[in-house]
């Protein structure tokens, strides 16, 4: 049915197995972890599409583990808990998914949330990749502009001519315009 991989990280065996079995029926590729460090190790090995993580995971602070996982872009975390009091909303706002599941797990709700979370995570990840690309090209253009300015000043040429010089140099040296611009800025 689908090829998404999900890691179920819950120290409670009953609850872990329950979620595991429910998701199994939907055809997800599933992994299990029983403690915080183990969760990180598996996340680093397989980069799952989603990690369902109990906030009471053993051996660690689950929120800290979740933060590392999303900071290092290993996966996206969906929290589960047996009490609303254990959820820190401020922390949750920093995460990819601003939602959590309350135990006992309701089958339909689980299916919906997992699908919704994976879909949203994909969207966020593709958006942030786009932003990064734009930022870096913007950064590059700024450099080229600065280098053009320096050339116009030094060689008393027009903007268009300065651009031609940069492009010529970039082709001659087999380097990107950005790299050539950097060299000129450094002097």
């Amino acid at each position, binding site marked *: 049915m689908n090829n998404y991989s999900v890691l179920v990280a819950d120290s409670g065996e009953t609850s872990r197995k329950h979620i595991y079995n429910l998701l199994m029926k939907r055809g997800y590729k599933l992994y299990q972890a029983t*403690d915080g*460090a*183990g969760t990180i*190790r*598996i996340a680093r*090995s397989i980069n799952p599409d989603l990690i369902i993580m109990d906030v009471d995971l*053993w051996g660690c602070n689950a929120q800290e583990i979740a*933060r590392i996982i999303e900071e290092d872009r290993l996966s996206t975390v969906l929290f589960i808990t047996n009490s609303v009091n254990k959820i820190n909303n401020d922390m949750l706002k920093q995460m990819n998914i601003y939602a959590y599941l309350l135990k006992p797990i309701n089958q339909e709700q689980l299916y919906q949330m997992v699908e919704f979370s994976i879909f949203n995570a994909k969207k966020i990840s593709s958006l942030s990749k786009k932003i990064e690309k734009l930022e870096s090209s913007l950064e590059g253009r700024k450099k080229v502009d600065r280098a053009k300015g320096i050339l116009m000043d030094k060689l008393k040429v027009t903007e268009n001519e300065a651009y031609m010089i940069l492009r010529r140099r970039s082709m001659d040296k087999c380097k990107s315009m950005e790299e050539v611009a950097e060299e000129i800025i450094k002097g």
Partner: protein
Amino acid sequence: MNSKALLLEKARELEVEFIHLQFTDILGVMKNVSITIEQLPKALDNEIMFDGSSVDGFVRIEESDMYLAPDLSTFAVLPWANNYKEARIICDVYDSSGTPFEGCPRNALKKVLKEANDLGYILNVGPECEFFLFHTDEAGEPSLKTHDNAGYFDLAPADLGGNARKDMTLVLKQMGFEIEASHHEVAPGQHEIDFKYADALATADNIMTFKTVVRTIAQRHGLHATFMPKPKYGINGSGMHINMSLQTLEGKNAFYDESDELKLSKAAYHFLAGVLKHAKGFAAITNPTVNSYKRLVPGYEAPVLIAWSASNRSPLIRIPAKRGNSTRIELRNPDPSANPYLALAAILKAGLEGINNSIEPPAPVSSNLYHMDKAEMEERGIEGLPVNLYEAVQCLSQDEVVKEALGKHIYEKFADAALYEWNEYSRYVSQWEIDRYLKKF
């Protein structure tokens, strides 16, 4: 603009929020006093105080006000902290009267470096630091396991340790380290990262930073990094080989002499002789734990005998083949549990003593020392390193040169702590004894 103002501006520009003022206690544990950016100007004027009596081996309660004097050149942003931007500055410790505190290991090293400088030398040091990456168990406690139970999880074989090491290398680079090599070591789960040599003080600072980075990044990978010298019986332990060369104030390598057979200078031979002579004395400093001496046994590439060689890797000191500006000697017994400031101070002092008294080294050995029999060793006058921490502390107590390098305060506190450690260990009934004697007697 002066350097303090420059640093302040830099910290503000980088939007640093927290600054960790770091110093190292006598046992080699890094301590932090954390401040916010608003307090940084105060810190740069050496006005940050802490309670010295709460630090192992520092002072008694009635003289406990200590001041931190930041070394501005050591300012670095910690690249892994994403929540708030954090930076660190390494500090010297001053007492309440404003004089360098004699219990501060960094001050002790500086003192010996000054002596070298007066003789016209700068000590360059390049360490080779080994460590193990182990898994943690379900309670988050470090274990001795290096692999997940493969049958339990259906996992593609991933080199978790290798990936963690890659991240460590990247972070170290961001902090200004020049990484020379990073590789898997002999034992399962054992790794080594080598960084470029620098003057002794910078290298000691770097070793402390290195350990922090390795531990932190390991944690982010769900692993536990340990610098324990010999975590597992029967496999290689972790060493911290120290590559050393003296440089003249004009920038030339003082260990190189083209006219000599081995192309080593007089100074190199005397330095080498001094280090050999005091090897027993400084062993307690370079190998400061009970566990250290379980690494220094035959058969695991760790040295046991006090000798030197231009080729063989079994003796205490090896002269790597490179000559010219790269001429150096490699001391092979130190391990990463050592306090790098004290270890370098003690080794340098021993070497300088050799130079001051023009001591001649014994003849080099060329055969594998592990295969040398007792009669041959006696004939050549080759002695062994101390076999345990107790003997090492005894040797230290008889070595006035090494004691002088440490200073009275550090020596006394250090020896007390080491003997306390030894006594605790001696009283403890270990699993080995139970397994051995419970049925037998």
